[in-house]
């Protein structure tokens, strides 16, 4: 298929359809509304269901229901709307159901702004709702990668029977880049889901539930979930290393911040500074071995994000505090400029990478 120029939000919608998603439940919010807008037109064309629910809470519970019935199902929102979905997400994770949740982050906290943000990192990777659960979190940095990761998101959701989040931001949702789509997956030809609740004629009923009144059983259930997260850490980490082989300073960023970092690395290299970029693509599981390899020779590390310091905590933790990890962040919908990142790099290199 030829390349088309498309907005991130719309490309995600088409990618979901290509991945076999036929059910979408959501509620509009800037800066992701083009996604439901696109699917409202597109899903009925191919026999799918688009439903604008009365609220985010209703939408996520519709996702819970459709996932329980074995459908490939998705919802999307932006920061405040995703907060509203958290109870349902915890239930879906507890009931071990596959689904895809898109968060096109905006500035927070509270209603915040409608401009891009990355301050939902903790919410996305540390749980967000109640209980010991994790989402598998994918962080694309280009429109093509958004499309590629959408197919992966549905596949991983099914593989682990776990909700998968695509964590983007307003910039990625609004920008246009050329993109190529994969072939359409026929949802009827996907592997069957024998656990799904879609009529129990002639067999024992399947129960979709997250309530365990027996504490011993619930503990066992938790251990099973933890084993699943450990398997994700073994098998699913993804990342990109850009000029890290000889880098004295390694930048770390995800999503659109990583794009700014890439431009900053290019400029720093032109000035003769050995800079590189490590970009986690899976935020949970975090690519620990990969970041350690990328920063092996680094004198310092600089984390850049559109928040007041969230990713930076995982960077320090996963580097086991062996390298000084510095931080540069903007918040509230402000986006780091390449110039500011380059000047931070220059400053750190002049200091010789000491002190964090």
């Amino acid at each position, binding site marked *: 298929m030829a*390349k088309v*120029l498309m907005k991130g939000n719309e490309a995600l919608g088409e990618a979901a359809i290509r991945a076999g998603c036929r059910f979408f439940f959501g509620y509009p919010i*800037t*800066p992701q509304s083009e996604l439901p807008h696109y699917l409202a037109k597109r899903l009925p064309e191919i026999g799918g269901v688009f439903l604008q629910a009365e609220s985010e809470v209703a939408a996520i519970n519709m996702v819970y229901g459709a996932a329980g019935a074995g459908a490939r199902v998705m919802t999307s929102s932006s920061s405040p709307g995703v907060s509203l979905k958290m109870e349902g997400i915890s239930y879906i994770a507890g009931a071990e159901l596959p689904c895809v949740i898109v968060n096109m982050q905006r500035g927070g906290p509270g209603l915040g702004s*409608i*401009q891009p943000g990355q301050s939902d990192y903790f919410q996305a990777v540390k749980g967000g709702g109640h209980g010991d659960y994790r989402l598998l979190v994918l962080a694309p940095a280009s429109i093509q990668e958004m499309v590629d990761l959408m197919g992966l998101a549905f596949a991983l959701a099914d593989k682990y029977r776990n909700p998968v989040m695509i964590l983007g931001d*307003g*910039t990625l949702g*609004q*920008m*246009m*880049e*050329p993109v190529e789509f994969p072939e359409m997956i026929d949802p009827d030809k996907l592997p069957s889901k024998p656990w799904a609740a879609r009529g129990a004629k002639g067999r024992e009923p399947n129960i979709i539930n997250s309530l365990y009144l027996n504490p011993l059983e619930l503990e066992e259930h938790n251990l099973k979930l933890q084993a699943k997260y450990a398997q994700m850490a073994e098998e699913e980490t993804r990342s990109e290393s850009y000029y890290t082989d000889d880098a004295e300073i390694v930048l770390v960023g995800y999503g*659109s911040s990583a*794009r*700014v970092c*890439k*431009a900053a*690395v*290019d400029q720093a290299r032109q000035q003769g500074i050995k800079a590189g970029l490590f970009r986690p693509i899976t935020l949970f599981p975090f690519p620990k071995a990969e970041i350690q390899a990328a920063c092996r020779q680094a004198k310092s590390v600089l984390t850049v994000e559109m928040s007041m310091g969230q990713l930076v905590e995982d960077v320090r933790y996963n580097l086991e505090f062996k390298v000084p990890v510095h931080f540069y962040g903007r918040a509230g919908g402000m*986006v780091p*400029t*390449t*110039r500011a990142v380059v000047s931070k790099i220059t400053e750190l290199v002049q200091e010789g990478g000491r002190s964090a």
Partner: protein
Amino acid sequence: MLQEIILAGFGGQGVMSMGQLLAYAGMEENKQVSWIPSYGPEMRGGTANCSVTLSDTPVSSPLIDEPDTLFVLNRPSLEKFEGNVKPGGLLLLNSSLVKVEPQRTDLRVLKLPVDNLAQEKFGNSRVANMILVGAFVAITGAVSLDSVVGALKKVLPEHRHKLIPLNRQALELGVELAQS
């Protein structure tokens, strides 16, 4: 080749479409391209801008701090972006609406009264933006005029395709004015 462009004006002047047109034209030529709008609670009559990158190599960041080229369609946009243009960069100005002089002396400046020109020559002020795009193409050669004309099919909805010849004339006028 790396050409970073900011286009700015009032909502309704067509800055978003101009940017998309350049991005599509670049894509037609197998260049790496990106387009990103300012978005916010703005609407027709408010200020709007978008950033476009045309490049031979993958676009590192679609966000542009220091453009090679700045399109200014109204006065607030000149005040907002003039200071950011790269030294030696190009400033394309709609002098029908911008009555003040640019402060920078290190830029290549082309002032064209495109609103008046579009009205006088074509009886349609809505193709004013195309005159500036034509001038840009003639000066920078970042994309060819043919690619831009081809991209009109992508940017204009089907029921507006009858306006392609008019847009083409406006583009050609821009080329002519830039060369003279």
